[in-house]
């Protein structure tokens, strides 16, 4: 049994607060995520969950609070102290960010193979054959037809584009993946396949992930831990089954009770 006492969290948020002028994005959010853990952040529109995700990935600057990340050298660093070059490098190698809208996370005018290979080229891969081989490999892993490696995502369906976005993010073996409603807007059967794929990949690659979703079923399926947000505040947080089976706060009870039974 691994000794957990000396294991450090991979990602730590302390008192994260974001004001957009006088509009509250989120207030005083803290969490710590360990390697191999998946945390779902659930809430309705305006809950602040997407703001939180963007703060965690340093796409937004916090009004207060900080985000700490343990890099591959084992040292935990405050993201705001890192230089921009380092942050961008992390974003390309150690992190993945899956947008709800796949066109935001892809280069639509460039072939699927180039989309997947771009991160590799950005970290110095210079052998065309190997880049193409890695891209082919990843297309297969996300259950895309490798024969379409030279097609642009413009010719792909929504579900395929989302898979491509996932492949593009995972090619550099990131340790932390942030996902914003990864199955939002997809047909139900497409959603189901994508969820199965995500579940498998997270387990196989031992990814840590923060998944923003409004769908409690997605949270239950994919995550170990859950954070419920409303109006920018954290309402409740804990083990997924604990919070969903034994909701404590009124809002959580409301959310859980609102799910339509199939």
């Amino acid at each position: 049994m691994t000794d957990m006492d000396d294991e450090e969290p991979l990602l730590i948020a302390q008192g994260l607060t974001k004001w957009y002028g006088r509009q509250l994005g989120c207030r005083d959010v803290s969490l710590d995520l360990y390697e191999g853990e998946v945390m779902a952040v659930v809430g309705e529109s305006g809950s602040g969950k997407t703001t939180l995700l963007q703060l965690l990935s340093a796409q937004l600057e916090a009004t207060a609070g900080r985000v700490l990340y343990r890099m591959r050298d084992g040292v935990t660093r405050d993201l705001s102290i890192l230089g921009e070059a380092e942050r961008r490098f992390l974003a390309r190698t150690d992190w993945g960010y899956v947008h709800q809208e796949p066109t935001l996370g892809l280069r639509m005018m460039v072939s699927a193979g180039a989309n997947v290979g771009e991160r590799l080229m950005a970290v110095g891969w210079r052998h065309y054959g190997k880049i193409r081989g890695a891209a082919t490999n990843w297309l297969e892993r996300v259950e895309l037809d490798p024969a379409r490696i030279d097609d642009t995502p413009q010719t792909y369906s929504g579900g395929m584009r989302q898979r491509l976005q996932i492949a593009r993010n995972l090619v550099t073996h990131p340790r932390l993946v942030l996902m914003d409603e990864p199955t939002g807007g997809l047909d139900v059967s497409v959603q189901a396949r994508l969820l199965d794929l995500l579940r498998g990949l997270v387990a196989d690659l031992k990814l840590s992930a923060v998944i923003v979703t409004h769908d409690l079923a997605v949270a239950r399926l994919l995550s170990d831990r859950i954070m419920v947000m409303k109006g920018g505040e954290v309402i409740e947080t804990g083990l997924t089954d604990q919070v969903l089976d034994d909701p404590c706060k009124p809002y959580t009870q409301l959310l859980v009770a609102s799910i339509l039974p199939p």
Partner: protein
Amino acid sequence: MNTPAYNFAYLDEQTKRMIRRAILKAVAIPGYQVPFASREMPMPYGWGTGGVQVTAAILGPDDLLKVIDQGSDDTTNAVSIRKFFMKTAGARTTTSTRKATVIQTRHRIPEAPLGEHQILVFQVPIPEPLRFLEPRETETRRMHALAEYGLMHVKLYEDIARHGHIATTYAYPVKVDGRYVMDPSPTPKFDNPKMNDCAALQLFGAGREKRIYAIPPYTQVKSLDFDDHPFERYRADGTCALCGAADSFLDEVLTDDRGGRMFVCSDTDHCETRRSRRSGEPQQVSP
């Protein structure tokens, strides 16, 4: 009638000073695009205003100026620009690559190797090599600053995926001094190796885009490629119909409308020099 009196080489001294400062900065940071306050010139954008401003800033009374366009001294634009400097600076001009001290060029590098006493000034339309992949200036500046050039290789990858080889034949991107990726202006990729370790100073001016960049003498310039798809100079098969050169860049000239064509050296001075050497005639210095 009063004829207008021009300052030497048209630009006022303050402007020349400003441009020289930009040039110095560019030389200090090889391949980096230095913004400069491009002036209104008596020719429209797209006709070499950047190159003309750079030449105007560095030209002195002792210089010998050569101007070529696509390798040729006698095309309209080359003639116009040469006359411009004759009029505004009283410049002495030549068609000889070997003798010139300042060579302004559009879209070609001369065949004859250049020396330490020479400066080559390129006319540049779009200085940003990443522009067609990333339209945002804010983003491309950041990419250069952080040396994030993955996107450049994406373009080359796409070429190979689509055409089986890197299809870029001109304006082929290069890495300068191991740091900045640069657009060498729309010179054919055939000319890229000439930029590497060149004894002359190479200056690049983009008037509409308001950028100046430079390659100092003896700087490493490497064309981007893949390990398994290395850079190749492309050349049409054939020799020059006029001088017989087998290793210069050739223009294809249609001779009739029945498909007749011939190849001739793009660099007219190179061709003439070879021909006069063969026939023993002295070379002409045109006005």
